[in-house]
């Protein structure tokens, strides 16, 4: 069958799964007074439509920032405004100022879901398809299978808002890897201006592009490229922030909403170092506030420094993608005010390396879905979660034959093991250990899921199960952080000399 027929079928499957999952309940359904993320999205449409731009980020009688105030950069606001115009055309009650709070109806749900589906269809899915088609040195069938697995990743299907920022980020990665540096950086700037969490990905982009400039020689072409990139970035930022650049107070207020430094190291339960550490030692209470920020800053940068330095000195497409993973993971583990959903920022780069290390990527993506379990159970998405996870697992297992690819070479750990074996000649059990770890990990995740679903937590420890889930996920993520860093640092010379993509 021709490639485009197969791709169409894969895209249709992806869309069908997304739509049927979205028929389920949404976050905060029927739960006054605050409801959930769905209500936040609706509220932003209400605010951006009814109030002038100057008031969007400020607290006022019309705009109560405590009730889902805008805390994403301007592009999200513009997108909400666009949706609001469509909503006004269909039913103005949905976005009427004040009176539409907590509005819930079948028609409105359909509208919100449709906007999400269209956003995915226009931005995210074409990026995935184009990315898989641009992969080199693999057969057509494998490209299509790769696209299927990425589109079936449960995390992005179950979290019910549009993934514009991930779509733009993916276009950015595509552009930069294919040597369309200006377009790539433009797309990435748009992504940052959509959700500020994309800053997790910014360092690898910066280092990779800087490395490219160095490689081209700072006296000639490299310098030109550097100037062009700088101009593109500045221009795109100015374009997005234009209405807010006029007054200093406006800009500062937006920044304050985007980076709530007074909110503390973490909120709720998240599979992050600080949250897991606080099981044993309550850091939040012991250390002073500014000290917490400094510590998280230091740990984050220390953990991502080696990979970034290597990327600057030896820029390669493969290194770029792996550095995206490790940087995002470092930020997730050590940064402050991390949300559970931020794991999706790590999952996206891992999806990009699915074809290179299928076994470990599949494992990681399963763990990332598992780490969001408490959130998904709260939104009553158990059945879609189980179904999409099984579907994803089957798709990966059959497309990549992951269980046969657990040798050292397949896991890209050959050079590492060789170096270790210089000191410890008996270090030959790496792949066996990893296989056993995988088995234990899957069994633990399944057991924890069953326990969380069927049993009630004990009276004295009502959050026991969520904390356990977070702790187990955190251990996994630390393991993966080490693993990805090893791959980057021990990336052999033959890997460095490969052509642009792959």
């Amino acid at each position: 069958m021709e490639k485009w027929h197969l791709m169409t079928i894969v895209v249709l499957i992806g869309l069908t799964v997304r739509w049927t999952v979205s028929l389920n309940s949404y976050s905060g359904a029927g739960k006054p007074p605050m409801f959930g993320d769905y209500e936040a999205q609706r509220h932003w449409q209400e605010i951006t439509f009814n109030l002038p731009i100057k008031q969007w980020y400020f607290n006022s009688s019309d705009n109560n920032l405590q009730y889902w105030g805008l805390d994403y950069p301007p592009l999200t606001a513009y997108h909400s405004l666009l949706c609001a115009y469509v909503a006004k055309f269909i039913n103005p009650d949905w976005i009427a100022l004040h009176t539409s709070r907590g509005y819930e109806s079948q028609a409105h749900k359909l509208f919100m879901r449709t906007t999400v589906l269209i956003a995915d269809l226009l931005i995210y899915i074409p990026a995935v398809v184009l990315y898989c088609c641009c992969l080199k040195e693999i057969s057509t069938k494998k490209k299509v299978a790769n696209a299927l697995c990425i589109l079936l990743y449960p995390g992005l299907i179950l979290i019910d808002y549009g993934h514009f920022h991930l779509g733009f980020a993916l276009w950015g990665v595509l552009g930069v890897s294919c040597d369309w540096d200006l377009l790539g950086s433009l797309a990435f700037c748009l992504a940052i201006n959509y959700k500020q969490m994309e800053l997790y990905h910014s360092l690898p982009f910066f280092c990779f592009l800087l490395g490219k400039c160095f490689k081209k020689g700072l006296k000639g072409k490299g310098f030109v490229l550097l100037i062009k990139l700088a101009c593109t970035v500045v221009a795109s930022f100015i374009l997005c922030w234009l209405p807010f650049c006029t007054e200093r107070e406006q800009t500062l207020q937006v920044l304050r909403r985007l980076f709530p430094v007074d909110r503390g190291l973490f909120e709720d339960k998240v599979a992050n170092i600080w949250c897991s550490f606080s099981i044993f030692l309550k850091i939040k209470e012991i250390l002073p506030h500014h000290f917490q920020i400094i510590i998280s800053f230091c740990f984050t940068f220390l953990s991502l420094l080696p990979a970034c330095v290597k990327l600057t000195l030896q820029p390669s497409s493969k290194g770029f993608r792996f550095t995206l993973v490790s940087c995002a993971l470092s930020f997730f583990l050590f940064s402050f005010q991390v949300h559970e959903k931020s794991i999706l920022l790590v999952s996206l780069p891992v999806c990009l390396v699915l074809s290179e290390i299928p076994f470990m990527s599949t494992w990681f993506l399963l763990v990332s879905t598992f780490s969001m379990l408490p959130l998904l159970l709260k939104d009553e998405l158990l059945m879609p979660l189980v179904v999409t996870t099984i579907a994803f697992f089957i798709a990966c297992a059959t497309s990549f034959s992951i269980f046969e690819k657990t040798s050292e070479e397949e896991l890209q750990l050959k050079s590492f093991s060789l170096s270790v074996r210089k000191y410890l000649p008996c270090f030959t059990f790496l792949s066996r250990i990893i296989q056993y770890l995988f088995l234990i990990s899957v069994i633990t995740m399944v057991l924890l899921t069953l326990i969380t679903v069927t049993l009630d937590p004990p009276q004295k420890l009502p959050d026991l199960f969520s904390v356990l889930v977070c702790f187990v996920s955190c251990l996994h993520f630390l393991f993966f952080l080490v693993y990805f860093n090893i791959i980057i640092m021990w990336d052999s010379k033959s890997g460095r000399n490969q052509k642009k993509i792959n």
Partner: protein
Amino acid sequence: MAALGIAMGGGNWFSALALGVTLLKCLLIPTYHSTDFEVHRNWLAITHSLPVSQWYYEATSEWTLDYPPFFAWFEYALSHVAKYFDQEMLNVRNLNYSSSRTLLFQRFSVIFTDALFVYAVHECCKCIDGKKAGKELTEKPKFILSVLLLWNFGLLIVDHIHFQYNGFLFGLMLLSIARLFQKRHMEGAFLFAVLLHFKHIYLYVAPAYGVYLLRSYCFTANKPDGSIRWNSFSFVRVISLGLIVFLVSALSLGPFLALNQLPQVLSRLFPFKRGLCHAYWAPNFWALYNALDKVLSIIGLELKLLDPNKIPKASMTSGLVQQFQHTVLPSVTPLATLICTLIAILPSVFCLWFKPQGPRGFLRCLILCALSSFLFGWHVHEKAILLAVLPMSLLSVGKAGDASIFLILTTTGHYSLFPLLFTAPELPTKILLMLLFTTYSISSLKTLFSVPSFKKIKEKKDGRDLVLLLPVSLPKQGGRARTSRELPGRCTAFPA
């Protein structure tokens, strides 16, 4: 780990396909369901709470039991599992009861019973000759057939959204066809007899079975030129076939015969008072007939040829199931439809008798019987098109000509099922699934036969009958009266 790898990767594409479609069915659980959901809940309640003697008399709900006894026993068996989900659904007085557990149980029961369909597809794949296929898995006829059957759009939306139990029934039919291909005629006959007592709509295709078994099984040999050899008639075979049918019928209808309820059962099974067309018109010949009658009556009124007072007030498109009369053209009686159907199936049945071509010929005759009954039958439901589409899939991977006909049949047939799901949330679902199936079927069959266009329809006598579908169904799509509320009158003469 290696063993797991072999199990996952190796030759188990069939399990992956079956598992994949099962997962999709699980995702369809929260979708819209029609009144058929309440129908089956009511039957669970009737068979569970009431004694057998009351089953065909119970009429608290409007959805009375109108399937043959085997289906009633099937519901009875299901009800014993249902009581662990939600006891309340088994109360006959709980009309329109649909708690989340009830929904879960009913949906899962459909998904679970589809296992028989999966097995039947597996058996059908064994009957496919894949010698001329390419090396790649996705280009093998077996793979294509499995996808066309397991992921069939019509079956998915009728069973898992609209809600019915067609999966395992079609499983029985495909299994009996597979057995006939494998020359296990007695099993095939037995399975078909059982199927008839599950849902009597399959009487549409009974002539094909009857003629084929009589001609190709009871006459054990042919003359060299292929015509009938009268002295090879085997009484043993006839009697054993007759015995099978008799025993199955006895098992099914026996208890009701003993209770003297046979007339009541038959009146429930064949409710001829229900009118020529169902509430939603099936895209068949009578739909065109009705439309023509309407057009002629309008012209007649305009030209003052007809007296407005003499025209019956009942509208055919009001969505009510009732009897009505045509204004200009002669009214149609059940007998007339039967005669039309018989005339339509006569050519293929004659072919099957005089020039038998083995199981393939039987399959063609079966498809034509199904199509003829669909086109000319009394009170036909749209869903009956599946009776022709699913067996046609078996032929489609054999010859290029059959593939073209299959593509036309299946695309129009599936499109004609769209009005079944009229709610807004289901619109993207049905469009996406339809696109998925159509894209796959067209591209895979095209690759298999490398046919440049679909217009090469074979000039066989059988082919010409099938082309009749096209002009009948296409005008139908334009002039359908559609209302947004669920209409009464679910049942048909041969209940769909």
